[in-house]
């Protein structure tokens, strides 16, 4: 006995434009409905929960600045992931490149001293952080572009090495990155000129401008330059690219290096912003991994990363604050975040495929 219908997924040639807006919005609504059922079943008011989440993240000035503060680094890691993904290169080690960016930026901030003005120092620290992130992906990029070795494995494994490195430079007595005056493992502060002040009494730093400008500039590069065109050709058809005389090897290498640099920049932004030193707790926060989800949410569209990073940050910030403004346990907040992300990603199937129910005719 079989069911006389079959569900088929037919790939759409070109996803209709209206769907690229409709589907994500529909996904969020579906997720909220799903969450509401769950909330009702566990005895919480969905309306209260959602309005509190909203006021904690987007509907109050404190919520907005907290959300943007988190988005500052997540835009970087999101762009880092998306920039590589759009060429079918899967750098999932943004987390590790972020650590190295943090270490590199801290080094520059400490060692380049007090003599340089902020205007020189801050860009310099950011540049060194970005370079450090690029350096961390150099070997995976090289073996990928030369030998075709899976970058998924190599970039991921290097993340663990990076985490150990962060711990090493903080927990080793006498380490350059550690404050020498105390037996407690505290990072050494960077020079005052390498540190920015937040806006007013918020936790938001001017570094948000850097993140947004980088994302928009890179989106422009991809859309409007020859380099961006090369990336697209390689992504669509490596063979055609080869025929057209485009060096896939060189482009892969450069795309991965830029991707690593962007994640490294994320770490550097933390140094000139809220940290001012290496905070070993960075290895528990998962900013780099979050970048992968953010890239997926934005469907690797670099400009859309800004929006998806802000949305993701709002969910995280609002979810955390749920505990404060309501009696909702933290697990509910985390569950809602997961549901919204899952639905948003799942909705992608509807955009890319036409779903048909086909009669198979004979029921036996």
């Amino acid at each position, binding site marked *: 006995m079989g069911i006389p219908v079959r569900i088929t997924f037919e790939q759409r040639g070109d996803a209709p434009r209206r769907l690229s807006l409709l589907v994500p919005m529909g996904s969020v609504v579906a997720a909220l409905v799903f969450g509401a059922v769950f909330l009702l079943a566990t005895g*919480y008011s969905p309306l209260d929960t959602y309005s509190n989440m909203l006021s904690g993240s987007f509907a109050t000035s404190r919520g907005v600045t*907290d959300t943007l*503060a988190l988005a500052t680094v997540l835009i970087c890691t999101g762009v880092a992931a998306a920039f590589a993904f759009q060429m079918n290169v899967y750098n999932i080690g943004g987390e590790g490149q972020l650590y190295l960016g943090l270490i590199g930026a801290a080094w520059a901030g400490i060692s380049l001293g007090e003599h340089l003005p902020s205007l020189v120092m801050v860009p310099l620290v950011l540049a060194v952080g970005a370079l450090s992130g690029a350096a961390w992906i150099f070997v995976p990029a090289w073996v990928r572009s030369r030998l075709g070795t899976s970058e998924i494995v190599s970039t991921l494994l290097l993340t663990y090495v990076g985490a150990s490195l962060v711990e090493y430079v903080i927990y080793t007595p006498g380490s350059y990155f550690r404050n020498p005056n105390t*037996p407690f493992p505290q990072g050494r502060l960077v020079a005052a000129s390498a540190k920015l002040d937040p806006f007013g009494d918020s936790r938001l730093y001017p570094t948000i401008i850097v993140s947004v400008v980088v994302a928009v500039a890179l989106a422009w590069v991809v859309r409007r330059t020859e380099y961006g065109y090369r990336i697209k050709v390689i992504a669509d058809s490596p063979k055609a690219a080869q025929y057209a005389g485009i060096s896939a090897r060189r482009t892969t290498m450069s795309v991965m290096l830029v991707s690593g640099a962007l994640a490294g920049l994320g770490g550097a932004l933390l140094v000139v912003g809220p940290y001012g030193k290496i905070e070993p*707790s960075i290895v528990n926060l998962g900013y780099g991994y979050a970048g992968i989800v953010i890239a997926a949410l934005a469907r690797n569209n670099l400009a859309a990363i800004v929006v998806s990073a802000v949305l993701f940050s709002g969910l995280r910030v609002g979810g955390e604050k749920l505990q404060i403004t309501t009696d909702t346990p933290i697990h509910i907040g985390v569950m809602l975040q997961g549901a919204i992300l899952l639905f948003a990603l799942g909705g992608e199937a509807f955009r890319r495929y036409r779903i048909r129910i086909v009669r198979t005719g004979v029921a036996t």
Partner: protein
Amino acid sequence: MRKAHKRVLALAAVAAMGLAACGGDSASTEDTTAPEETAVEETGADYGNLKVAVVYIGVPDDKGWTYQHEQGILQLESELGIEVKRVENVPEGDEAEATMEALAAEGYNLMFATSFGYGTPMARVAAKHPEGCFQWATGAKFLLTSEMGGEFATFDDIPANLGTYFGAAEEARYLSGIAAGKASASGKIGYVAAFPIPEVIRGINAFTLGAQSVNPDATVQVSWTKTWFDPTVEKEAAESLLDAGVDVLAQHQDTTAAGLAADARGAKWVGYNSDVSEAAPNAWLTAPTWNWGPFYVQTAKAVAGGTCPNEEYYGSMADGMVTLGSFGSSVDADTQALIAEKQAAIIDGSFAPFDGPVSDQDGKEVVAAGSRPELLDLLGMSYFVKGVIGSPQG
């Protein structure tokens, strides 16, 4: 979130009988997850101006560090008849500041933060909210000065509404070491430890000295997990120590994972934080435990009375903040008597765990015979004593 209203009432009854320093036993069995109406008892208008919040690094059900703080918070709730806001699973670092800021904005005027990594965020929020009172567990204020890598120019710039609280766990560590030393036939003991910071190093050393006081050749092998709370990692570290041949495990972790691993291999276990012998009754020897309740109660009362205690409170076995848990069935009467005798000596001050002579790993004398180190030296301890296997640098 309120765990169980009944539990609060039970504790209130205990408190009413004058047993202020109650432990966690009476409350450890229930686990009600359904939310309930929270009817706050109006026991007095005195505390109407008090809004208390606690920021937890983990969850109150961890049967360890956070669980033990939860017992103290429950005692505070029942004695003062107020409700405390818990915020759970807050990661250390920058994002914790958003959480604490939001609490302060909601009008919470007494905040407890139960982890070392909350120091900078809490100090920042304290500076912005002089009307509130902020208490940082396991902290030390001098670490907030720029000289130490913090962000306040001098000690005097640290907000005056910030206090710290902690205690001499090393006293109970030493006593639990005696139980471990007696229990170890091979003289090889393992220690699952979180981070190579002075607090943990001090505990390992005190434990080792206690074990060696009854088992002079005992060694303590350390395995670092670089996490406070991760049952999987803690279990793996415990198993690698058991594979290396240790027959007793101790821990500086928040869960009972090491105890379960020891139990599975027939080894013995010294826990930490909570008296949770039921987790692994056969392996259980004892555990250094905390009793935070009296501190929470006295601090809340002071704040309600208009003062924010901003000293660096360092409790001990003498004042009851540090305690030793119950003994497992394998700890014989002689050992218990010996531990009781040492405990009495610690409480009356005639003995302290680091009384000289003490040598470091290389055999170099670090505390001379007949002398007792200053508290500040203990707080900054960064060496391992002789007999510890492993590196104090992680």
